[in-house]
């Protein structure tokens, strides 16, 4: 089982994702430089956080044109697991692998702090180690995480159970106060129709070890590994 962490110029959570897969999850992992054009040999891809290409123009807008992206899109279309975290989520939106767009946070400020997420669905490659409606605590760190889509898209996200994580309070209520950035329907993470591509704004890699103040993020990666193990049998 091998993970690939795609590195764009300006990615800055690439080393963090690499560390978690290698040292915490104890799995094989490689960096994939954005100028490469193949992702052969990988079982799962991580598009890490950061500011790819400085996020100039629009977050993720330039990264989607990187040489590696056609291979990532192919990989996803063939059912490979792809997780985009923060800037990685923004890139997945720009690349059309997930629907919707990101706006600036409601406060117009960058926000770095832990938030509570409600697990809306657990029959996915990214949440099968969590329990239904489980409240987990994961940090966010972004300036543009205010998810938006039109009413029709939202309806189809809901109808197709594509919303995996929502912002909630400690008790699991999806209140406006618990929404840190103004995201539509408190959306924190969505998957594609088939369920093999996940985009989420919170950073599970930042809380996969107890020494960092929490380990709920561990289960996102552990879900991926569990899923891959099952698929490989």
């Amino acid at each position, binding site marked *: 089982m091998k993970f690939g962490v795609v590195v764009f*110029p300006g990615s*800055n*959570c690439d080393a*963090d994702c690499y560390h978690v897969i290698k040292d915490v999850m104890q799995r094989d992992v490689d960096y994939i430089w954005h100028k490469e054009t193949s992702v052969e040999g990988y079982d799962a891809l991580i598009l890490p956080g950061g*500011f790819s290409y400085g996020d100039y123009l629009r977050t993720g807008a330039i990264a989607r044109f990187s040489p590696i992206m056609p291979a990532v899109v192919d990989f996803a279309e063939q059912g490979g697991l792809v997780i985009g975290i923060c800037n990685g989520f923004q890139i997945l939106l720009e690349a059309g692998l997930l629907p919707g767009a990101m706006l600036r946070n409601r406060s117009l400020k960058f926000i*770095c*702090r832990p938030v509570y997420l409600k697990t809306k669905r657990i029959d996915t490659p990214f949440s099968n180690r969590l329990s239904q409606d489980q409240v987990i605590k994961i940090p966010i*760190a972004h300036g543009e995480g205010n998810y938006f889509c039109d009413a029709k898209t939202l309806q189809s996200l809901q109808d197709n159970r594509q919303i995996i994580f929502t912002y909630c309070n400690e008790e699991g209520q999806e209140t406006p106060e618990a929404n840190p950035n103004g995201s539509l329907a408190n959306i924190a993470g969505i998957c594609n129709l088939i369920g093999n591509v996940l985009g989420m704004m919170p950073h599970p890699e930042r809380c996969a*070890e107890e020494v*960092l103040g929490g380990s709920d993020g561990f289960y996102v990666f552990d879900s991926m590994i569990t899923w891959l193990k099952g698929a490989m049998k």
Partner: protein
Amino acid sequence: MRKLSYREMGLTDNEYEQITQIMEREPNYLELGMFSVMWSEHCGYKNSRPLLKNFPVEGPQVIQGPGENAGVIDIGDGQALVFKIESHNHPSAIEPYQGAATGVGGIVRDIFTMGARPIASLNSLRFGTLDDEQVKQLFAGVVAGIGDYGNCLGIPTVGGEVYFDPAYKGNPLVNAMCVGLVNKDEIAYAVAGEIGSPLMLVGARTGRDGIHGATFASEELSDASREKRPSVQVGDPFMEKLLIEACLELIKEDLIAGMQDLGAAGLTSSIAEAASKKGRGAKVDVTLVPCREKGMTAYEIMLSESQERMLVVPKPGQEARIAEIFDKWGLDATVIGEVTADGMFSVYEGDVLAGTVPVAALTEGCPVYVREAQEPPYYQVCRSFNIEDLAETDPAEALLQLMASPNIASKRWVYTQYDHQVMLNTVVLPGDADAAVLRVKDFKKGIALSTDCNGRMVYLDPYQGGMMAVCEGARNLACTGARPLALTNCLNFGNPENPYIYWQMREAIRGMSEAARFLNTPVVSGNVSLYNETAQGAIFPTPVVGMAGLLANIEQRCQMAFQNAGDCIVLLGKMREELGGSEYLYVCHGLETGMVPQVDLQEEKNLIELLLGLNEEGLLKSCHDISEGGLAAALAECAIKGKIGFIVDIEVHGRRIDAVLFSEAPSRAVVSLAPEKLPKLEKTAAAMGVTVHLLGKVGGERMTYRSAGQAMIDLPVEMVTRIWEEAIECRMS
């Protein structure tokens, strides 16, 4: 562009005379410009160098003291910590967002220039008070600028401090500290290569921004300063991120003989510094420098402070591999000149010699001034202030006012705008302990960092205040369980040509030096920022101390939150009652005066050693030093962080209640521990000569302060928490 006179460039008649003597002729405009930036206070330290000599700079832990791009200390296991703090005050005063952002960019370059991976940033900020719209804009702009730049780089901003006082209105302080980690055998120095080695310029193109920034940073701020906005550089953190990665690759592969970042005074300073290290010379052709706009003169190119540029001197034969790495990162590297043997810094425009200056004249040749120092009249006046003339405020009312003071209140509004977790090393989050603590992956050890300075105390008594800043830094680290190892400082003062200001500098540095020597925390790097004045006067003298230290075992780190009901609360150190310079006098009585609490260095050292010993034995559940707001605020903060109350009984013994509760006397800390550990603590403290006062117990939902059984303060934790957490947010919304 209108030509400036030498006076407009910040040179005195005397200095101009010296230049003509060195040159044995009148300098041309380019040469004059080069001298003026190199001889500015910012680059040449001409007013501060004699005073800086007092700092202790040596110790077994020191690998590199002052004189390089940053200081380096040994943290064992073949690893070293590289760190420095630097000011960007003047640019931030007129263009807060870019001024602060480029301040971060500059200090980060200093760190990776040494071959170290930057792993943490801190910042020390000072502003006027938040009832002023202009101050709010400055504050918001500076925080956003620091955040956006550091966040984009992916370097966590893990700590720092913010103070608000009328003394900083119009002249905010923006001091940025960066810390890097490097293997000892991979440290890079700014040594120029062999004669004939090419000088490569890499990174951003050179523009007209920042010309004379170093000169501008070395004069007082006035209404005319706004017109100098073009002196403020514009930052591009994405370019800086590429530079970090590319330059660290060069060093890893051992491809370079030297590297120098382009900061103040741009190409002039970086080439002069690189060439002066070996007594070499350099020649450069400005027509080879990639420029942002057409028609830039040699003068503009040599003085530009455009950001995100590096000067690289390759090892012989490595040029091709270096170009390959830069190409990988999409960076342009251009050879713009070479190292020479003649000791001259020669600037060509194609074949035409545009100017030539002895390298040594620009660097060591910078004049040095020992200014006249005079004790200012306010000093004795403030010292003679009699506290007995003051009516006591109701203690509960006073505590609430203090907790709502932006100087004590939660800095959540600030640090949530900074990515403080990227890199996955931050094991103590901002605000949870007296210092930031980072793990070092693959090892048990951790690094602790803090910045400290109470400018008001330094103003009232520069000598004592200087000692306090060092002591507080060391104590903050010890509270987390880390041994303080060394410090960097950023000396922010007013105009040194004013004898009162020079006296403040001299006395503060004397105090800092004594404390640093006594606590064995030498000064390994630093920066001086003078002329921090507006028409309203000088800032409080603010010599910020950035302290770095080491925890042997990250699992033994200690934070300030009370943990469990029933734990004992203990004051380590003396019950003291000096109120001079306190936040209490400022907030509750509108006074910034008094004789400041006196520092006893032995007492401080004993406390630090005790805290380290107690943490090592795992006796403590929480630890928090006493500073702004005194004992009362320290207890309240432990309760807020722990979301649990306490009952304490404090012996007043006929003393003023406000003095006992709110004194900011140093060398003290509040700790909590399981009751069965108390005898062990008492024994250890007695052996170390530290006084112990058992104050009470953790528990409940209220903060209850009693004296001889009588309640002095009794407030719900939740209510105080809300006031403390929302104080800055309310003022900013």
